[in-house]
């Protein structure tokens, strides 16, 4: 089993009121088969045995589908690999002797709770504003009752892959939530079931996001480059179209 020795520079912050600082922690004898979070577990085990406070970080499924984990590793959201969550990032991508800078997501709308844990409830507010279909479904219909072209279904599925991890906001030079928001708007706008509420949805979700203090999109494409689900900015363009349709084409204000 190959092992590597690392030095971690981890953001430590006791709570929302604490200013926070970087702490240097040695991480010797890390197996290259470990995931990034398992590496943090090993470091935390040692800290606990030494009677020190372990590094707080968010995690849940550890198989890349829940959206809980995430941190900036050497300035990149979820680390250097493309299309990978932090839990699916393996230590074989690092070299012996590397120093890793580990910081929480940074945005006005995402407050640091403790160490690497950030409060992403702003995303919940955006979804609660309209990221759903409220029509009662009734009994199950025949599958061919509402025809949807294969390509459209695929595109909606691509958008629906968003796990709400927040890497788009963390990567965006403007801390904008456009990729996250557009994934949900685009997903539901592509589906016949989402059309009746399309105008209400895009207006309400955008208003909620603006109120949360996210920045404005400037088409830098950093979100697309770091999204663990590789969601494309074409969904942002669709959301912009939906907004235009809602503003000028619907009776809603």
């Amino acid at each position, binding site marked *: 089993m190959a092992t590597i020795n690392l030095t971690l520079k981890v953001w430590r912050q006791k709570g929302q009121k604490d200013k926070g600082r*970087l702490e240097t922690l040695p991480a010797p004898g890390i197996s290259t088969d470990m995931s990034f979070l398992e590496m943090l577990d090993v470091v935390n085990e040692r800290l606990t045995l030494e009677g020190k406070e372990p590094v707080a970080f968010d995690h849940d499924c550890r198989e890349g589908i829940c959206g809980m984990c995430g941190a*900036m590793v*050497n*300035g*990149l*959201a979820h680390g250097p690999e493309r299309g990978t969550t932090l839990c699916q990032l393996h230590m074989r991508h690092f070299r012996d002797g590397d120093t890793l*800078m580990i*910081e929480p997501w*940074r*945005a*006005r*709308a995402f407050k*640091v709770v403790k160490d690497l844990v950030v409060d992403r409830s702003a995303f919940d507010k955006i979804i609660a504003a309209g990221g759903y279909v409220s029509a009662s479904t009734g009994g199950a219909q025949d599958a061919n009752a509402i025809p949807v072209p294969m390509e459209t279904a695929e595109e909606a599925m691509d958008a629906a892959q968003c796990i709400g991890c927040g890497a788009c906001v963390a*990567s965006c*030079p*403007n*801390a*904008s939530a*456009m990729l996250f928001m557009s994934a949900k708007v685009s997903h539901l706008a592509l589906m016949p079931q989402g059309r009746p509420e399309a105008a209400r949805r895009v207006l309400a979700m*955008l*208003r909620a*996001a*603006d109120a949360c*203090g*996210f*920045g*404005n*999109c*400037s*088409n*830098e*494409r*950093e*979100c*697309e*480059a*770091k999204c663990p689900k590789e969601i494309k*900015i*074409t969904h*942002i*363009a*669709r*959301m*912009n*179209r*939906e*907004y*235009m349709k809602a*503003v*000028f084409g619907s009776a809603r*204000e």
Partner: protein
Amino acid sequence: MLWVLRAFSSSVGKKFLMAATGLGFCSFLAAHLAGNLTVYWGFDAFNSYAEHLHALDPLVKFAELGLLTMALIHIATGLTLFYQNWTSRPVRCQVKRAAGGRTLFSATMPYTGLLILAFVALHLITFKFAKGAEETVSQLASSVFANPLYVGIYTVGMLVVGSHVAHGLWSAFQTLGLSHPKYTPAVEKLSLLFGLVVALGFGSLPFFIVLMS
């Protein structure tokens, strides 16, 4: 009409304003460049172009009013976006690397924009509101570019404008939702090409005028 104001004050609404006025400026650049390139047919052709343009004075005044309105919207909205985007991340990462999405052109948009504003002010002072004794536009251009400092400023200015539109043109299409798997790759290339044409087309003029004078 309050709904219109409300629609354009949202984050996407402000971007629409930037994109629409930006596309307006791109068309202006294309027309301005086409006119200026007449200098390559000689000073007579250049002067004739300028005279014919000024013969359409009411139309020119109307266009100037339009450009001024677009400039006010583009600058005011741009500065608002710049400020909001700056304050949307009060605490920054100690280390932040680009993930491969942004380019030199996209990352410098607010700064190139402000430089263009300064350049346009200078350009209006040197050409539009010039108080010299020169009678024709070619004489005016020759006397301005006799100063190497102006040649330098104009060359750098045109590189900056080229950089701004190289991201801006494509970006405006994306913002207005004009994204399509068949056309977007071409629009992205066209945007870079347009930036290059603007930089080279306008940027070469001072040197040619100096050579001809």
